[in-house]
């Protein structure tokens, strides 16, 4: 599996955390892209709620695919959005995203007394742990 | 290329599709042209009408074509090849050759050696300005427009007027990008 990008957004569209695993973009473009991304998932979520044959509460959609990439998303009850972009053949990553939420985000970010909610995450340990986790999933990354 | 060549693809679809009698087809087209000449009484207007009719056909025909073919045209060369080998084979039962590329590779000629539409046609002197096959030019223009290629297609040489073969000249004016590109790379 190839992992391209990873994002964490809160419910009002602040990008709390962002990592590019393949290729760098300029600062300006990055910000632009984050805005587009949040707008897109926000739209898709309301779209899904309306379209769904049965009512769905949180995280109405789990992933979408284009010819080039696949986007996985997990929305928590607290309104956080964990987003991961992979290659198109990747299987469902819901469990991976909830692993990140409960085993990485929760201990290394939330339990850090210096973390301010709604502010970008600066924890180096979290970043490190996350990268290690991605390395186990994306074996081609180190090569 | 991994995919089927355009020639093979055209051949297969030709074999699968239903045929109509070539004479009926030629008669229908012939009487259409004659009717237009009688009604409009002006050859250049007839040429224009034929082109417009072709254009309207092309607008629809393209979807029929794409829904039955798996084509991806990256370059103008691919496009020309697909028109000549798949398109003409599929709809007229003939293939034509692509030649006379200009240096910028945005103009080419389609050479038709054989054509079911003109088999029994003889043009008399009064109709020397008539572009009997102008409908085909319109079809190409209309079909290309639907895939966002602006083009002009003209009947360059006509076997009905004593030329050795029929030549359709296609000039690609512009490939329209409809993608939203803010400030990219």
């Amino acid at each position: 599996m190839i992992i391209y990008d990873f994002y964490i957004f809160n419910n009002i569209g602040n990008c709390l955390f962002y990592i590019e695993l393949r290729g760098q973009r300029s600062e300006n473009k990055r910000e632009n892209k984050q805005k587009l991304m949040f707008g897109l998932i926000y739209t898709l979520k309301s779209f899904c709620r309306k379209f769904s044959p049965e009512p769905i509460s949180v995280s109405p959609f789990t992933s979408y695919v284009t010819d080039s990439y696949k986007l996985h998303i997990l929305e928590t009850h607290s309104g956080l959005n964990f987003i991961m972009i992979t290659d198109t053949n990747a299987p469902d990553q819901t469990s991976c995203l909830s692993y990140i939420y409960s085993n990485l985000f929760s201990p290394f970010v939330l339990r850090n007394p210096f973390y301010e909610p709604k502010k970008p995450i600066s924890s180096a340990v979290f970043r490190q742990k996350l990268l290690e986790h991605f390395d186990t999933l994306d074996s081609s990354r180190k090569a | 290329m991994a995919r089927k060549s355009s020639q093979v693809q055209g051949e297969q679809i030709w074999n699968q599709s239903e045929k109509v009698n070539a004479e009926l087809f030629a008669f229908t087209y012939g009487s259409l042209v004659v009717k237009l000449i009688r009604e409009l009484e002006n050859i250049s207007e007839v040429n224009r009408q034929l082109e417009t009719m072709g254009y309207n056909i092309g607008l629809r025909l393209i979807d029929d074509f794409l829904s039955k073919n798996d084509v991806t045209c990256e370059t103008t060369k691919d496009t020309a090849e697909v028109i000549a080998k798949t398109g003409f084979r599929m709809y007229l039962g003939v293939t034509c050759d692509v030649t006379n590329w200009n240096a910028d590779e945005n103009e080419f000629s389609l050479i038709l050696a054989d054509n079911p539409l003109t088999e029994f046609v003889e043009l008399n002197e009064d109709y020397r300005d008539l572009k009997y096959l102008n409908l085909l030019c319109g079809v190409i223009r209309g079909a290309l427009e639907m895939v966002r290629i602006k083009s002009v297609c003209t009947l360059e040489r006509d076997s009905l007027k004593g030329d050795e073969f029929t030549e359709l000249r296609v000039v690609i004016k512009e490939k329209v990008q409809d993608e939203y590109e803010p400030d990219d790379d």
Partner: protein
Amino acid sequence: MHYHFFIVNKIGLIIYDRYYQGTAKLSANDMIRFSSTLNSVHLISAQITPPNLRKTGLKVLNTKTFKLFCYQTTTGVMFCLVSDPNSQDMESLCKKAYQHYSDYVLKNPFYETDQQIRIEGFDQAIDRLFLEKAV
């Protein structure tokens, strides 16, 4: 199991829709909103493609309760199918629907392009396509 099939033309208007399996019908206004949303979603999802990959728009949307498949033709018409989350082969069904569209709709000389499709033969062909395959 297929719930809903619709066609969006290249300027983002719904020109055809059909419901199956007793799904609640959406209001005309909702549908208009959707189809235009879908168009922009398609564009933006292409825009956020990671670097060095070909920019292409949304094709499949997976949710817990349904799956949406969009097949966009080279001419810009979009064929969309909403089915249960486990549906397979939605792409080939949409391509078949495209063929029916070119046969029943575009070859009908009285059909005006980009207008609402009201053609009985097409309805029947589409129903055959989606009801036959449903288990």
